[in-house]
């Protein structure tokens, strides 16, 4: 069970105070889980036996090139597609048997916003709200207006969906996912078609959701976006999970030594090599030390050698580098095995 206790911080439509502790998820609770999930379309293996845990309270980014199986995986987690093998769990209950209990607390924007072109944005949203179990009939009108304002569509709510721009359609899709406070919000490519300010708003909304204690599962191919807002990532490639885990851990694991700014690079390289590290000069005034003893010992060695150290930082790769390395390694391997 993923009961979040009585924290009750689900006032998602009030501005959250960032940094305030949200309700603490029960230890080890999973908002979504895939066990050996597999989907075959004809002869194409779209998802090839994926095990995935989405911890409650996380902002989980799913990365992967087009056609890597992100959307199919999401659709199986939500019970929209029957898996060819394996099982899925949503908010602690099995899919699809538990869906009638869990889906009301799940907001989703999957495969682009789906609405009727002949209805206005407001009327489309109203239709969605009519089928929301968490909304009483008298609450529908207010919930629709709140959601419209939240995504910045209040001004265009009376216009027909037909005339909406791509970004406005995407906003309406977000609004329908946010009609009621959710425990899990699934956003498939949420920033598709959005301008920079729309992208910032998505970032803000994801932050609000997280502060309110909700779990956010999003898929994207915008690595900078994921790096900016996610706590966890999973990388998919050709239907398989390449890696998944906490973003900071993954980035640290890919760390590439220390970058040290010194006055005398030649002496510094010598001192570092003497201390047992691999060292080389990279840019004027900067040396890079890799391997050998831990960072404090290396720095002590430099100071003992009488070298002035101005700045030290660990070379942390950006998600983009990590992603490129992970997916390209795999391509190479696939190429060899083929």
């Amino acid at each position, binding site marked *: 069970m993923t009961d979040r206790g009585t924290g009750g911080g*689900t*006032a998602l*439509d009030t501005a959250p105070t960032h940094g305030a502790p949200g309700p603490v998820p029960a230890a080890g609770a999973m908002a979504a889980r895939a066990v050996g999930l597999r989907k075959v379309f004809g002869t194409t293996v779209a998802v090839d036996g994926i095990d995935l845990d989405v911890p409650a309270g996380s902002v989980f980014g799913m990365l992967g090139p087009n056609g890597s199986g992100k959307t199919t995986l999401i659709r199986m987690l*939500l019970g*929209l597609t029957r898996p060819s093998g394996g099982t899925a769990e949503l908010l602690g209950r099995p899919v699809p048997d538990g869906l009638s209990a869990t889906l009301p607390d799940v907001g989703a924007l999957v495969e682009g916003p*789906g609405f009727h072109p*002949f209805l206005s944005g407001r009327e489309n949203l109203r239709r969605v709200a*009519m089928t929301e179990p968490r909304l009483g009939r008298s609450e529908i009108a*207010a919930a629709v207006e709140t959601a419209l304002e939240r995504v910045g569509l209040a001004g265009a709510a009376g216009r027909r969906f037909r005339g909406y721009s791509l970004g406005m359609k995407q906003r309406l899709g977000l609004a329908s996912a946010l009609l009621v406070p959710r425990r899990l919000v699934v956003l498939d490519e949420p920033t598709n078609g959005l301008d920079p300010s729309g992208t910032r708003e998505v970032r803000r909304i994801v932050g609000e959701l997280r502060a309110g204690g909700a779990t956010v599962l999003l898929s994207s191919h915008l690595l900078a976006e994921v790096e900016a807002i996610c706590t966890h990532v999973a990388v998919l490639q050709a239907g398989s999970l390449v890696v998944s885990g906490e973003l900071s851990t993954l980035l640290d694991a890919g760390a590439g030594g220390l970058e040290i700014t010194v006055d005398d690079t030649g002496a510094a390289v010598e001192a570092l090599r003497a201390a047992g590290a691999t060292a080389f000069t990279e840019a004027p005034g900067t040396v890079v030390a890799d391997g050998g003893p831990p960072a404090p010992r290396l720095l002590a060695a430099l100071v003992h050698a009488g070298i002035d150290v101005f700045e030290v930082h660990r070379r942390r790769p950006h998600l983009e580098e990590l992603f490129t390395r992970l997916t390209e390694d795999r391509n190479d391997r696939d190429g060899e095995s083929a």
Partner: protein
Amino acid sequence: MTAATIDTTAGDPRPVPTLRLFAAELRWVLRRPRTLIMFGLFALVPILIAIGVVVADGDGDGNGGRGLIGSIGGNGLVLPIAAMTISLTLLLPLAVAVASADAIAGEASHGTLRGLLLSPVGRLRLVGMKAFGVLVVAVVATLVIAVVGVLAGLVVVGGADGQLITLSGTTVGLGEAVGRVGLVALWTVGQLAAVGAVALAVSSFTEHPLVVLASVLGGLITFGVLSTIPALDWLAPYLLTTGWSAGADALRDPLPLDGLGSSSLVALVYLVVGAAVLITRMSRRDA
């Protein structure tokens, strides 16, 4: 803020009441411009027939020709029954096919079927909701023809002092005449329900609304062709369209019920088979 007061930890949510789903579907069906245009066109059917009959009478032809249409002359209450019978051959099934195509295939092509499944409406209730919407279209379309038919019959065609002269030559009063119109309307809706169930079943297999229209129209035409082949006479009782002339039975006195009854039974079989396929398919469909 209303939404904020909902405590999502307050146990399992209760499903949305079925009546609310029906209301949502009704609103959606009736807000669709093409539905309203369709109803408007159906209102024109009895009016056009009425005008045609009056103009033909004006030619001094006297009895306005033979057959169902011919018997309308000076006998306005025949008009609604004739209009329903004529519309049942193609127009009404077309309307039902359009509604069925929009109901599932259309929702799938717009990506809105996904939204309904994610709400979650529940797959079985989704079928119920969609069947209700199609039935509403069938009922309203039939009623439009019946009501406009009665009015146009009395006002434009007139005659027989508000009474109905049956094909058997007897006269029945306005009350019973309207009752017979109601019976034909009910029977027509039953036939359309069968068409709707089959159309919805087709609709559940595709996300192209046109496929549904093509299937229903193709099916009707095929049935029509089959029924003209003498060697296939044995097939006739099983064809849905065979009984579709039974509506005119309501113009006979005493009222023969065997034609209306047997065609309703055939319709029921189509309805059950269509519903079974529809439910089976929708319980597994990807969205």
